[in-house]
């Protein structure tokens, strides 16, 4: 475990998790703490060699600044970054990603921000509808698309609810499809421009909102009949075709 280690301190999981996932994709080992006390425990446990603490200033047990001061005094070699607000956190994650140790930046930090904002909005919407938790167990009928046909090979795969909700399911369905890791938004544009009702989301972080791809998302398609295929990085790297193959997939 030699990758640089970042500890994220943020109370809200819907903010913390996408940030953490993004930084993992940039090659960091990322630990998550939900408050200042957890952060202290992780730092003092000796289990990890933490290089940097990125802490929200307000939500973490009342005082991120106090935590930061403590870190700087106790672990002078550990860097501290304070972030106030989601946008600033995403921006900071983007900066860290630029300097990432292993991989190139997988996507723009604006996408992380979109993911966070859309999941926060979904939580609010669902709460208003009375879906405190968990989310509705079935996709609404409008989202239940039919079947996915690989026209190029004639192989036909039924999708029970018009979507694959796990990387494995997606990989099974699309086992000949390969997406370059960074191409998902341009692919979505391409699909949208062809009026395909198939949206493929590279969603390592399986936040399911249609705005995962931000401004690039084919929003009109998302509102209509569609299939959403969530592909993880693992699923993507296991497959071995190209974008052109995807265009052989038609939803019927």
């Amino acid at each position, binding site marked *: 475990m030699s990758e640089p280690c970042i500890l994220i301190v943020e109370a809200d999981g819907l903010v*913390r998790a996408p940030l953490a996932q993004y930084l993992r994709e940039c090659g960091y080992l990322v630990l998550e703490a*939900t408050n200042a006390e957890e952060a202290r425990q992780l730092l003092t446990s000796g289990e*990890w060699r933490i290089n940097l603490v990125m802490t929200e200033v307000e939500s973490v047990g009342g005082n991120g600044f106090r935590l930061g001061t403590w870190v700087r005094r106790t672990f002078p070699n550990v860097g501290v970054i304070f972030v106030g607000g989601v946008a600033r956190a995403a921006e900071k994650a983007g900066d860290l990603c630029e300097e990432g140790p292993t991989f190139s930046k997988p996507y723009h930090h604006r996408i992380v921000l979109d993911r966070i904002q859309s999941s926060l909005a979904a939580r609010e919407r669902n*709460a208003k509808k009375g879906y405190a938790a*968990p989310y509705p167990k079935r996709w609404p009928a409008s989202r239940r698309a039919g079947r996915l046909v690989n026209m190029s090979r004639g192989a036909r795969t039924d999708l029970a609810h018009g979507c694959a909700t796990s990387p494995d399911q997606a990989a099974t369905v699309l086992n000949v499809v390969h997406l370059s890791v960074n191409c998902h938004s341009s692919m979505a544009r391409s699909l949208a421009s062809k009026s395909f009702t198939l949206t493929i989301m590279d969603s390592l972080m399986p936040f399911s909102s249609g705005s995962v791809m931000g401004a690039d998302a084919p929003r009109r398609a998302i509102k209509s009949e569609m299939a959403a295929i969530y592909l993880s990085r693992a699923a993507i790297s296991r497959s071995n075709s190209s974008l052109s193959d995807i265009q052989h997939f038609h939803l019927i």
Partner: protein
Amino acid sequence: LIVRATTAEGLRRAGFIVLEAADAHDALSYFGASVPINGVFSDVDLPGSMDGLELARRLRTEQPDLPIALTSGNHLFERDTPFFPKPYSVAEVVAFFANVRSGRQDE
């Protein structure tokens, strides 16, 4: 907490996407935001007003097929859920969810 972070990291290295939650309400927050989740691993003894048993019960009411596994240092309570007595090995938990994953793939 250390156990949570270690287990989460073990699962991530096995290819899972792992969301961490500090308590049951934190966990439910992910479901409340429509985040697709394919499995839950929870301690029975959680901070706050809801323990892991209640969390599992609530999740199962809504999603009977959701794979759930529990852990606890207390081995004595009745249980009808896959259970990992503490101290458990991360490898066993990874193996459990790997089985769940391959089961889904076979469907």
